[in-house]
């Protein structure tokens, strides 16, 4: 009898446990979006806050798992031809735009051939590799490439490959189309209301193509411009989710210690942010490789991470991070903090010192808030140790972009997104044909190495993973030794959220995912 009771109890517990994991319908998710985005029409603007909100309204053909394997979304499957020149996508049937019109291959062709190249430089560049795109039927799209491009699939996730409705935008000025104020996508949530300066409200799309989803009734994105106020709003329960950067990193541990609150660093595998220190190799003595290596040895990266970046991040000695496909730590120069070695390198460099000072350089911190300012102070102090004096130059964001992209700097702090494949986000920072006037992730340092150019060009055209691995290992070895930039650390952003929110981060784009699977336990 007792055994039976135990068995019954066990069965009951199991049933409850199963029930707890079963997604529950309903509920409102309150979040913060900062800064307030200028639009939520993700096709037009790819800023962080726009992507965060817009990715619930719009979708791409595919998304990526945390290990960067492509996952179906609006495309249910795809084939890549043997020669890597032809990509055939099979679209899901029965998908509707929020206005009820069907989503078809014509929308895909319109988005990639006309809309996106006008709005987003990355998509424009990738689409320039395309010879032609065709739609054999309503649910099939074929892209024919001029030459193989190993990172081609990357452009099809929601930010690079936002699917926009052809029937609304064709023949109009896409930047001024009234639909931009009331966006029409295919995603699980529909635009409801934007009370400017206060909040953005999205509601459940009852006609969503995944039956029974989304689980949530609606989403609120609150606009709270001050970081301290955002922390208080989370503590008071007015918001249940904070993205990295919503509050200062040093607040994170305090908030995470609260009951029923969790923190994760996942969900950055796609963007893969890497903090770097740009070195203008056009300016002496930064053209001297020993000087650059000396700078690299003079910085204690773990100290920077702990003291400045709130403990989030991992030291970087090369152009890729643990998250990047083809990352190979074995070939990297070991830039573990070593002040003596740094001083020795300066002495060997051939640069002459006057009164113990080798050079006086401008140091321009990235104007993204207190953290970067503090990092610059640390760098300044360490450079002084090895005989380099610095003047800290303060500018606002547009001024920083202007000076960085026109080469008017000696040393500046920066961060870049590696975007899931070295052919998409790594090569651009080191290739000699991609220098000034091409954005802040370009080769603003003026590094020129024909060998590196050749390797990245070859690797981008190579599809065989084993060969690509060999190419990128070679590139990492050369770059790490040459130090055309100083890699600071693989950045990591904490997402702080209440434990009742389930299935929050399950893919590589992290919070820039549709939220169709997110649910709240009652």
């Amino acid at each position: 009898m007792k055994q039976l009771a135990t068995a019954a109890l066990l069965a009951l517990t199991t049933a409850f446990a199963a029930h707890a994991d079963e997604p529950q319908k309903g509920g409102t998710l309150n979040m913060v979006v900062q800064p307030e985005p200028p639009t939520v029409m993700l096709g037009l603007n790819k800023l962080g806050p726009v992507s965060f909100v817009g990715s619930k309204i719009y979708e791409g053909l595919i998304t990526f798992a945390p290990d960067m394997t492509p996952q179906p979304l609006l495309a249910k499957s795809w084939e890549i031809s043997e020669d890597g020149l032809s990509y055939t996508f099979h679209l899901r049937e029965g998908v509707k735009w929020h206005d009820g019109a069907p989503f078809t291959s014509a929308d895909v062709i319109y988005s990639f051939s006309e809309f996106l190249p006008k709005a987003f430089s990355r998509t424009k560049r990738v689409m320039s590799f395309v010879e032609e795109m065709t739609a054999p039927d309503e649910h099939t799209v074929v892209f024919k490439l001029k030459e193989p491009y190993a990172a081609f699939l990357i452009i099809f996730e929601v930010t690079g490959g936002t699917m926009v409705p052809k029937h609304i935008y064709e023949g109009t000025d896409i930047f001024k189309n009234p639909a931009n104020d009331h966006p029409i996508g295919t995603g699980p949530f529909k635009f409801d209301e934007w009370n400017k300066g206060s909040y953005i409200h999205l509601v459940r799309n009852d006609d969503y193509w995944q039956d029974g989803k989304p689980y949530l009734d609606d989403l609120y994105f609150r606009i709270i411009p001050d970081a301290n106020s955002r922390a208080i709003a989370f503590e008071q329960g007015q918001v249940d989710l904070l993205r990295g950067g919503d509050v200062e990193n040093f607040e994170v541990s305090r908030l995470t210690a609260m009951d029923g609150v969790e923190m994760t660093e996942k969900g950055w595998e796609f963007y893969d942010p890497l903090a770097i220190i740009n070195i203008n190799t056009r300016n002496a003595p930064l053209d001297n490789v020993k000087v650059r290596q000396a700078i690299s040895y003079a910085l204690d990266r773990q100290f920077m991470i702990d003291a400045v970046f709130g403990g989030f991040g991992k030291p970087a000695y090369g152009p890729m991070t643990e998250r990047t496909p083809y990352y190979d730590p074995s070939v990297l120069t070991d830039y573990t903090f070593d002040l003596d070695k740094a001083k020795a390198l300066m002495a060997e460099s051939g640069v002459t010192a006057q009164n113990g000072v080798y050079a006086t350089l401008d140091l321009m911190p990235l104007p993204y808030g207190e953290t970067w300012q503090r990092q610059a102070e640390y760098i300044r102090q360490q450079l002084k140790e090895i005989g380099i004096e610095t003047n800290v130059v303060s500018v606002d964001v547009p001024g920083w972009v202007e000076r960085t992209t026109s080469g008017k700097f000696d040393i500046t702090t920066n961060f870049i997104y590696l975007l899931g494949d070295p052919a998409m986000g790594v090569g651009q920072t080191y290739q000699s044909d991609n220098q000034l006037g091409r954005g802040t992730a370009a080769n603003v340092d003026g590094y020129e190495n024909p060998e590196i150019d050749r390797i990245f060009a070859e690797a981008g055209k190579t599809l065989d993973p084993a060969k690509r691995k060999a190419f990128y290992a070679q590139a990492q070895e050369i770059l790490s030794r040459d130090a055309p930039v100083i890699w600071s650390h693989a950045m990591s952003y904490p997402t702080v959220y209440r434990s009742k929110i389930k299935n929050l981060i399950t893919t590589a784009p992290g919070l820039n995912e549709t939220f169709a699977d997110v649910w709240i336990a009652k």
Partner: protein
Amino acid sequence: MAQLRYLFGRLVKAIMVLLAVTVLSFGLIRAAPGDPATVLAGEQGSVDPEFIEQVRARYGLDRPIQEQLFKYVAGVARLDFGDSYQHNRPVIELIGERLPATLILTMTAFLLALAGGLIMGVTAAKHVGKWPDGVITIAALLFFALPLFWVGLMAILLFSVQLGWLPAFGMNTIGVEMSPIGRTLDVAQHLVLPAATLGLLYLATYTRMTRASVLEVMDLDFVRTARAKGLEEKRIWRRHILKNALLPIITLASLQAGHLVGGAVLTETVFAWPGIGRLAFDALLQRDYNLLLAIFIIASAFVVFFNLVADLVYSLADPRIEVAA
């Protein structure tokens, strides 16, 4: 007739001032490094130069600067302030969305401060050298010296987090259906903390100004004469002291009234109040020329307007000041 001519003269001057403001702000903002296309380039990480040129052409930024200025001034003359580069919408619409929130906040703070400042200033002056004067003077000094954002955060911690009396952020409770009266009360509740915080700063100014002004007038000959005549004390205060002490307050108030439109960046930031100050600040960081210029020009127009009003009010308060061109 003389008054009409005076008014006309002032109007012409006002238009000249606004034109100068427009040209100067246009020049100043263009002198800052980086333009909207640069900002876009920074946001997109990696861009091709052709793309940047297309962006410049779309906004007309590829034209010679004189041509852009001429076009802009001609537009402003027709009350057309152009479109925002970031929002792709007419800037007038954007400002229209935010102006009511700003006016509710700044006007409330301003009126509270004006009334409170007058009462406190007069009280202090009446009891000069005694304890009420000391308390008021120290309080005013404190309000004036404390940084706004700090006062705001402390107010949130005390009244919202600790006591739970008042909402901490925003202008409305979101996600709740309410009757129009309920909505109004809800906004009023949200208004208390930000208006009080912002008001404290103004309050300090008016208190000190009123106290000083009253003290100065109190000792003048005509007040002594009034007392010697045996006039009632109440009447002396109202007709003789206050009326004369009011002039500098009117000047200050009219200057500040013009500034109310410009918003209050710090208060709006701390309390997530959806006003125009934040809009201007964000526009600056985005080099959203049209939006920022329109906010400048409209705010300047209000300052000019209230100065004009002040001149007219002077003549009512003090008939000795004649309106003459």
